[in-house]
């Protein structure tokens, strides 16, 4: 991710677009991913390459899965958010429940933002997304042949020019 924060915004589900734009502007986020706990991406802001989105989504989902296991060991229901602070960038990973099930946000921020700002506006972002989220569609079984096609469609949506 050398061109950090250089890309635009792409969404798979249109209802995510407005809350995401608002959040990115207010929190000063460089990169943002909205995904489900499996790592399936609903929207991204700032990424320039599909491979980076896939890697970040997989790693973000793995972080949440790992900390969920730590929470289980501590008899905690779950950790709602976690932060990693670097020298130039910080990473915030937060989760919230929506009509579409649990969603995760992975946010990378730089020196023009802060942990406090990202946390503050992420709470508002989560509320905005839950309010904008349409009722869930009837779920059908995921077939192996559909999975790759749907994955490719999602990636094409996230990176079409």
């Amino acid at each position, binding site marked *: 991710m050398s061109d950090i924060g250089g890309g635009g915004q792409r969404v798979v589900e249109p209802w995510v677009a407005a809350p995401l734009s608002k959040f990115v502007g207010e929190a000063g986020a460089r990169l943002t991913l909205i995904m489900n706990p499996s790592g399936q991406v609903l929207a991204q802001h700032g990424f320039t390459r599909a491979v980076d989105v896939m890697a970040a989504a997989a790693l973000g989902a793995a972080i949440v899965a790992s900390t969920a296991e730590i929470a289980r060991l501590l008899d905690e229901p779950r950790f709602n958010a976690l932060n990693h*602070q670097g020298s130039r960038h910080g990473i915030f990973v937060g989760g919230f429940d929506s009509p579409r099930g649990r969603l995760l946000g992975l946010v990378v921020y730089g020196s023009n*933002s*802060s*942990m*406090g*700002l990202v*946390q*503050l506006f992420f709470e508002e972002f989560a509320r905005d997304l839950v309010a904008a989220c349409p009722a869930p569609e009837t779920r059908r079984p995921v077939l192996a042949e559909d999975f790759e096609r749907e994955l490719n469609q999602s990636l094409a949506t996230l990176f079409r020019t």
Partner: protein
Amino acid sequence: MTTAFRRVLDQITTIRGVRGALFIAGEDGLVVADSVMEDIKPNAVAALAGSLVRRVRRGAESAGVGTPNFVHLQGATGTICAVPAQAGMLVVVLAEPEVNVGLLRLAMRKAAEVTG
């Protein structure tokens, strides 16, 4: 240590017009200790005041006037003041517009020394 911070903040809130006082981690915009009225959200104040002070500091340093040692933002319905303390912390105060800023500044600088 947090108890000591709270005690100092409680002293600031005895000044007429003060609605809340906080120690925040300046770079992170997180609350270290707070003494605020019920209608004030300390997390929001810490995040936004931290961001404000960082931007003011960058502006002041770019302008060649050095690091600000007192930030005073006067709004139509209130005032925000911030003073840097040790270890990257800030003392932040929310107050009514008519607060005695001189007295407040002295109290905030004294509070900042507690963190040393």
